């Protein structure tokens, strides 16, 4: 069985060194940033810039890997034998995900490709440090915390609660105090934030492109990614980028933007899945290096699966109230204040309140539709079902993400507007509250009309 101290060496931080030798005894040393444990006696190394190493291994498959424990500074020499290379599979995806995320931190994620991972058998492992390593702390397992959080999720009857419970539970039981949940856009090109925890701003609606940064790469490869030493990883990524730029292979492009801490030292992104369905990504980060362990990555993956199943069930849950008894908007009254121009750009489905951008995409189209029905028919109560069937929205028949869009819209309004809000009144039903006079302006047509309606009092 692989010793814990050796497993700790695979956390990265200080690059490993792979020594090989040609048949005429001339050695070569290659730096290895990612060493991935495949089994008790097998590891996978990223095959990067390894021409000489490959040539040597063809002549002599025996190699030595020098590893450094990032906690104790202890050095381990592994005698390994090269077995094969893989261009797909779980080990390939994990290593590809980590390296692409590191490269993305230097703004070259899209330029990064991994040729293959090389698999090696571990024949022997010797601790060769001159100084006695410090005693390893006993690392607690997280089964109890997973059980508690899993139980809460299985009992959740509301999507917003399930998302918030997950992030708060991760803070309470795991000490993961900065987290985001992002959902997949129906185009599968973007992820948008629907829940956050631990930040000054809620960030609802902030977006990450598919395959961009650790979040987008975890979604694209559908594999958990954990980066433990981002300070060191960033410098490695910068060195890769500097080489690519100096060689003319990469233009200096727009630096990556993603939600979160300004200087995270440790990140984890785990896909939220239910079967083949990718719901989104669960992301946590810390300002402390190596804050998260392999055990915590495994725990987060289990929780993300539980969350995926819960989301699947909650998104399919039936409505609980009949469609009757619709309150209508009040006539102009005491709540009227300054009129607000609500402007809509159909091309991007973007909604602006006066000059301030509010939201775009499907959530923007939903809000525009609700406000039109409100001004034209005085309606304030709506159901998910009718929106889903409304031909004006043109939602896809499968995986329309309507509930997550409504949640996003609700949170975006809550964070940016004190006179317009969505209130969930029952499963699958919600109410629109408007406390200002509004004028709807379709920017591609003439202004619709002016209304002086105020908020509803059911």
């Amino acid at each position: 069985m692989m010793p814990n101290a050796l497993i700790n060496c695979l956390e990265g931080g200080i690059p490993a060194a792979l020594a090989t030798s040609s048949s005429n005894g001339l050695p070569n040393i290659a730096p290895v940033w990612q060493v991935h444990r495949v089994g008790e006696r097998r590891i996978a190394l990223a095959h990067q810039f390894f021409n000489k190493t490959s040539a040597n291994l063809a002549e002599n498959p025996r190699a030595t890997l020098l590893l450094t424990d990032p906690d104790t500074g202890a050095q381990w020499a592994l005698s390994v034998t090269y077995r094969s290379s893989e261009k797909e599979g779980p080990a390939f995806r994990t290593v590809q995900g980590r390296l692409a995320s590191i490269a993305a931190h230097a703004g070259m994620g899209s330029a990064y490709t991994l040729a293959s991972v090389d698999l090696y058998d571990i024949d022997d492992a010797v601790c060769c440090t001159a100084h006695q390593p410090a005693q390893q702390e006993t690392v607690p397992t997280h089964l109890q915390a997973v059980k508690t959080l899993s139980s809460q999720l299985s009992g959740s009857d509301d999507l917003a609660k399930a998302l918030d419970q997950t992030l708060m539970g991760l803070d309470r039981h795991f000490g993961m105090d900065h987290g985001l949940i992002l959902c997949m856009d129906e185009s599968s090109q973007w992820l948008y934030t629907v829940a956050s925890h631990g930040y000054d701003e809620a960030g609802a609606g902030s977006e990450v492109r598919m395959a961009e940064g650790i979040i987008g790469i975890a979604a694209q490869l559908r594999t958990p990614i954990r980066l433990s030493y981002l300070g060191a990883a960033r410098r490695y990524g910068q060195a890769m980028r500097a080489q690519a730029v100096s060689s003319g292979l990469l233009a200096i492009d727009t630096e990556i933007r993603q939600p979160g801490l300004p200087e995270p030292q440790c990140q984890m992104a785990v896909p939220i899945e239910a079967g083949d369905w990718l719901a989104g990504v669960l992301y946590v980060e810390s300002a402390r290096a190596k804050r998260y362990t392999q055990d915590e990555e495994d725990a987060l993956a289990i929780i993300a699966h539980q969350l995926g199943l819960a989301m699947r069930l909650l998104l399919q849950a039936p409505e609980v109230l009949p469609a009757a008894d619709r309150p209508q908007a009040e006539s102009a009254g005491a709540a009227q204040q300054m009129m607000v121009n609500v402007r809509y750009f159909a091309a991007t489905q973007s909604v602006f309140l006066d000059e301030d951008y509010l939201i775009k995409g499907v959530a923007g189209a939903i809000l525009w539709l609700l406000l039109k029905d409100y001004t034209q028919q005085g309606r304030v109560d709506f159901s998910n079902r009718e929106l889903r069937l409304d031909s004006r929205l043109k939602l896809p028949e499968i995986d329309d993400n309507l509930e997550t869009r409504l949640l996003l819209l609700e949170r975006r309004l809550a964070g940016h507007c004190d006179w317009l809000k969505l209130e969930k009144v029952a499963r699958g039903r919600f109410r629109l509250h408007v406390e200002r006079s509004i004028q709807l302006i379709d920017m591609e047509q003439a202004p619709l009309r002016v209304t002086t309606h105020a908020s509803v009092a059911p």
Partner: protein
Amino acid sequence: MHFMFAWRRVSYPWRMSPNLTSLRRTELAALIAEGMLITLATGQSDQYPAVARGLAARLDETTGDITFLLARSTAWSLLADLASGAALAATLAHPRSHRAIQLKGRQAQETLPEPTDTALVMRQSENVRLALAASGFDDTMLSALTAFDPDDLSAITLTVDTAYDQSPGLHAGRALELSA
């Protein structure tokens, strides 16, 4: 909620050309003085290579020979290989920028450390420690990584036959010309 990662271009001490990169001895000596992560390996035609970590290095700017300082107790196999005439490879990686070079030669032997080598190891180790501390490693680990016993110090002097640029990227492995 958004932040922009500030990429800062790291200075690159050696000159680039399409086919060959060159590095002057004075430039290499300056790089070494900043403190490098050093790995040493000896070759065996059909066995596992022996490896050891170097603690520091010094360059003879007249001859171009480079001397590595290491803990003897961690390098018995490597020193035994050298005694039997094995070839040596050494990588020197800058811990801040990840710029790296690899040096190889068939003439390498254990030599006696000089009286000033203990101070040299302390100085370069401290530079490495500071560079790694900036990457988030804690003091306990860094103290263990850079600790050494002066009585355990050994030296290996290498006559460099070939040198290679080993910085991360597509040009890793490109030949490097060491010039006077």
